[in-house]
């Protein structure tokens, strides 16, 4: 809502208040100010001129040489290119020295040998947008009224001597979508009571509205109030300057007297109006009803609108003539030939209007006001005011009486609350008199008892209904910034992270310590990427109406996003990238209404783990780099004993020989492996290693309290063993045989060498392990260890045909 300060000062005394200060106060008490535009002081040398002569220039098809009287000693010579310049017109002249809003500086010059010492301006050249300039003036200069005073500044004529405050009005404060509403609001801020001119209608007593029209409403819930007046013997023409000026400066294009008045009244009262060409209605009846299926209407914008039961229409008793509250029909709209106008002022059910405006994508100043509600107390006053103005400006007469359906009457609301309740909510110590004064500023009457007050809220503030609404009014009138600052005095319970939240934080710090940086990717991605890398079967959860293919489905795995991140960085000369992400993935479940939302942890690593430097050779990341990180993380999470790895070639996106399923409690909880070389090539990546784990299950488990195990007092004994086995024998299998057959004292087993090549048969490998034996209670005897060690050897030979070396 763009508010003209001059217009506002018709209701309030704003003398001595700077517009900027006023805007600050409005912001701090109620409505956010988006912008303040101040009078255009730089345009002071733009004056009213009269065109004395206008001669077509011989060597140009559009330029005219004019002499313009601007109140100086001599008329000035100006070359003008506007098609509509004519002798005798009062025009806008920018004299040398003026800098126009579009940056053009006016200088004395010559065009094709003719002196041009100024410029005759269009409204656009003074900063008005095309969309608000009257159609007639769109293609040329703007013509001022005949009584404009030559040589005087043009700014007052076109409203540029005014300041405008742009209000950003929240949905609850639709009462301020009108100048009168803003008048009340600013009045409350300044402790002034706004005064509005009284409206009187001069009716033609001889002619009654019943002679013209009767109105009916099918369902009073849809249109609780519907009123109509008729204005006859009209001459529809261009609006006077004052009206055009007011509309243009708040962003509305002047059209003709009738349309302009309906817009003007809507701005003043917040009451949308609609004017019909009475003769085009071809009926003496107006009926408001829901549209029938398959009914249609050609709206003002020449579009045929298919209607249905959700749409409310105004009919002439037969066919629709307007979409209620949204847009008029083309056939019944007012034209310059219109002689009689049927003028509508109504209250329509907001949700019906909202639905129609939304489904037809037709949002207007009018529909948005109906959606947000309006002041039921001024429907008829606005109608009367508009009817009178239309009659005045078009030398017509208002027919006596109002045709109406009125199912509801405007009513004050009473809200009673205890003063304690206000102080309790705000943390203040206000006394009754203070609250009464604050309500008085808003124009709300109050009745008080010792402890409670009853506030009477007029219909113009339909947003107020309950105690909390009154408390809000008290707070903003009192001033939020005068409230004290305290902290809740409630019972003190320590705040702490849940075990899962703590483990997630630990996980993050661990991954960072391990050299991986955290990324945050988009959860919405392409359908294909959403599915890629997921262990979960099925289709991703997709948006009903996506904005783009890029963001249409919810990710089922974090790896696609992570790889995009890796690829992005590699493409920018980053050789080595190590990333992790922790976030939600979404799995559709046809048995459930909602998809499963799981927290996953994933990592992607490519390039080197250690870059070549003056001391070390380069070490590239490999499968065991990724696995090593996970192993250490499982220790941190306390579940390393419960985790195992199973080789898998079941996942297309992974290297079939370098990928393992991570198994916990007999369930696959994740994958670790190499990105399939073909996919890596597609993305221009070198060997890239990935892991992804469903951490919800792992991190949510209750852990036993950690119990300290005493540091061993007795020395341990170690043995090394080396043997040759088939290449296909897995380390895990060897370990499990060793553990089963190694005896009670075998504490740790560490692989220290793995060798294939010279001196070893093809398809065989040599493995060497270091075994540590320890008895916490006593020193181990050499022969005990030897006995256990021999047992272990025998088991290896028997199970794997190991050749002990």
């Amino acid at each position, binding site marked *: 809502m763009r508010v003209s300060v001059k217009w506002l000062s018709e209701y309030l005394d704003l003398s001595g208040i700077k517009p900027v200060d006023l805007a600050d106060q409005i912001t701090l008490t109620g409505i956010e100010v988006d912008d303040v535009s101040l009078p255009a002081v730089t345009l002071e040398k733009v004056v009213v001129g009269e065109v004395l002569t206008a001669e077509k220039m011989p060597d140009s098809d559009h330029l005219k040489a004019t002499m313009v009287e601007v109140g100086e000693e001599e008329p000035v010579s100006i070359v003008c290119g506007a098609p509509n310049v004519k002798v005798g017109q009062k025009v806008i002249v920018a004299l040398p020295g003026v800098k126009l809003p579009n940056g053009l500086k006016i200088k004395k010059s010559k065009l094709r040998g003719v002196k041009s010492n100024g410029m005759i301006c269009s409204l656009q050249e003074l900063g008005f947008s095309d969309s608000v300039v009257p159609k007639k003036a769109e293609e040329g200069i703007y013509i001022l009224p005949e009584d404009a005073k030559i040589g005087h500044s043009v700014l007052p004529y076109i409203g540029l001597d005014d300041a405008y405050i742009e209000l950003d009005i929240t949905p609850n404060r639709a009462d301020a979508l009108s100048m009168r509403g803003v008048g009340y609001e600013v009045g409350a801020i300044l402790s002034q009571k706004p005064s509005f001119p009284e409206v009187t209608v001069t009716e033609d007593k001889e002619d009654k509205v019943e002679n013209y029209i009767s109105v009916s409403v099918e369902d009073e819930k849809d249109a609780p109030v519907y009123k109509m007046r008729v204005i006859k013997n009209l001459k529809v023409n261009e609006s006077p300057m004052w009206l055009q000026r007011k509309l243009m400066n708040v962003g509305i294009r002047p059209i003709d007297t009738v349309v302009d008045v309906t817009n003007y009244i809507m701005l003043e009262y917040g009451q949308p109006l609609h004017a019909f060409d009475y003769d085009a209605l071809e009926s003496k009846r107006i009926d408001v009803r829901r549209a029938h299926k398959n009914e249609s209407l050609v709206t003002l914008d020449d579009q045929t609108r298919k209607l249905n039961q959700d749409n409310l229409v105004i009919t002439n008793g037969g066919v629709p003539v307007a979409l209620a509250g949204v847009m008029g029909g083309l056939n019944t709209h007012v034209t310059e030939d219109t002689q009689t106008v049927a003028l509508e002022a109504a209250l329509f059910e907001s949700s019906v209007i909202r639905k129609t405006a939304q489904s037809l994508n037709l949002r207007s100043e009018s529909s948005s006001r109906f959606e947000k509600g309006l002041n039921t107390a001024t429907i008829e006053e606005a109608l009367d005011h508009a009817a009178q103005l239309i009659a005045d400006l078009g030398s017509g007469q208002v027919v006596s009486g109002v045709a109406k359906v009125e199912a509801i009457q405007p009513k004050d609301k009473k809200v009673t609350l205890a003063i304690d309740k206000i102080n309790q909510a705000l943390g203040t110590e206000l006394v009754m008199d203070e609250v009464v004064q604050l309500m008085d500023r808003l124009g709300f009457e109050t009745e008080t008892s010792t402890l409670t007050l009853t506030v009477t809220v007029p219909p113009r503030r339909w947003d107020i209904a309950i105690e909390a609404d009154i408390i809000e009014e008290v707070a903003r009138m009192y001033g939020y910034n005068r409230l004290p600052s305290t902290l*809740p005095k409630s019972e003190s319970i320590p705040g702490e992270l849940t075990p899962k*939240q703590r483990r997630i934080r630990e996980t993050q710090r661990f991954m*960072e310590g391990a050299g*991986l940086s955290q990324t945050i990717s988009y959860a919405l991605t392409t359908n294909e990427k959403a599915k890629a890398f997921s262990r979960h079967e099925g289709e991703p959860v*997709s948006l009903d109406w996506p904005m783009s293919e890029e963001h249409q489905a919810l990710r089922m795995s974090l790896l696609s996003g992570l790889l995009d991140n890796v690829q992005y*960085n590699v493409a920018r000369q980053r050789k080595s990238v190590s990333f992790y992400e922790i976030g939600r993935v979404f799995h559709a479940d046809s048995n459930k209404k909602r998809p499963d939302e799981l927290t996953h942890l994933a990592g992607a690593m490519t390039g080197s783990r250690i870059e070549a430097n003056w001391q070390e050779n380069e070490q590239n990341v490999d499968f065991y780099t990724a696995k090593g990180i996970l192993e250490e993380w499982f220790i941190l999470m306390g579940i390393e004993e419960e985790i195992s790895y199973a080789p898998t070639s079941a996942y297309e996106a992974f290297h079939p020989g370098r990928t393992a399923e991570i198994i916990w409690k007999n369930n696959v909880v994740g994958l670790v492996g190499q990105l399939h070389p073909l996919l890596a090539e597609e993305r221009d990546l070198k060997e890239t290693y990935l892991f992804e784990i469903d951490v919800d299950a792992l991190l949510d488990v209750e852990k036993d309290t950690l119990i300290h195990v005493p540091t061993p007092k007795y020395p341990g004994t170690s043995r090394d063993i080396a043997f040759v086995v088939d290449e296909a024998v897995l380390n895990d299998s060897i370990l499990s045989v060793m553990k089963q057959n190694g005896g009670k004292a075998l504490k740790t087993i560490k692989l220290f060498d793995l060798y294939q090549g010279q001196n070893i048969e093809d398809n065989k490998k040599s493995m060497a392990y270091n075994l540590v034996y320890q008895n916490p209670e006593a020193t181990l005897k050499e022969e005990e260890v030897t006995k256990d060690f021999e047992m272990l050897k025998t088991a290896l030979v028997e199970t794997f045909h190991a050749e002990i070396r």
Partner: protein
Amino acid sequence: MEMEKKLATLLEKAKQEISEAKDLKEIENLRIKYLGKKGEVTSLLKGMKDLSPKERPVIGKKANEVRDALTVILSEVKGKREKEKLEKQLAEETIDVTLPGKSITTGQPHVMTQIIEEIEDLFLGMGYQIIEGTEVETDYYNFERVNLPQNHPARDMQDTFYITSELLLRTHTSPVQARILEKHDFTKGPLKMISPGKVYRRDTDDATHSHQFHQIEGLVIDENITMADLKGTLELLAQKMFGKEREIRLRPSYFPFTEPSVEVDVSCFKCAGKGCRVCKQTGWIEILGAGMTHPHVLEMSGIDSNKYGGFAFGMGPDRIAMLKYGVNDIRNFYLNDQRFLEQFKRKG
């Protein structure tokens, strides 16, 4: 006195040789040469038996003096040589300490995580819990339960990604309010929680809009909670995030689930309120929205709004990070360019 002379000559000679000894081995050889069982001092003393009994003690004394003198010199020179040897070794071991150290590669948390954890820690310290909600929500919890019924004009403020007519990507973290209010047992104490997480809006991505971003919701419900408590809490938050000297300013606003509702501005940390480009010459920067929980929201969760009340607030960590670090394009947070992410390794 021939013997005496011999001893003196021996002493001089030995002194000379020992002082010229180059290393520990040479010193040891000289010790053996002079003081060993078959050394020169010993063998000289063997000639004592030819001396007269009168001379013997004199010479004996003298010989012991020579032995002691040599022992002292030997140990002195030995100490000196040991020291020289160590010094030489240390000198040889000297390295160029200005060469680069061995690199340890560490990653860093995303800047958003840092901001969120900082805020979490502040509220944990004040006794709040952290509650996480789901990113896929129902229309009912996302809108209706925060007092935004179907066809409410305020639904226009948030454009929504719908999955079905009932399911959507949450447009704010506020549905967590309704979910926790239903569950909380007030006989066990007040409800104090914050809820960080991702939210989604139907926006075209540009420098200041992202279809995915973060929010942190806060909610305190108890008996006797006042708007002054809200103001004090937010003051602490603003000072924690933007510096001790910051002030806050509350401006009336509108959210369907709070009343009164306010927008909260913090005094500009770039210009300290004088007016600059960051605060658009106003001296204030909008950082969050807040208000007193609307009684309808409590009642929909079956809570007596006459007995209980409280406040809620919501802020955007993306916006806070942008303001705090001067990031002028929100898309940076989701592009994951190492060169951007790495800048936030340094804390503070």
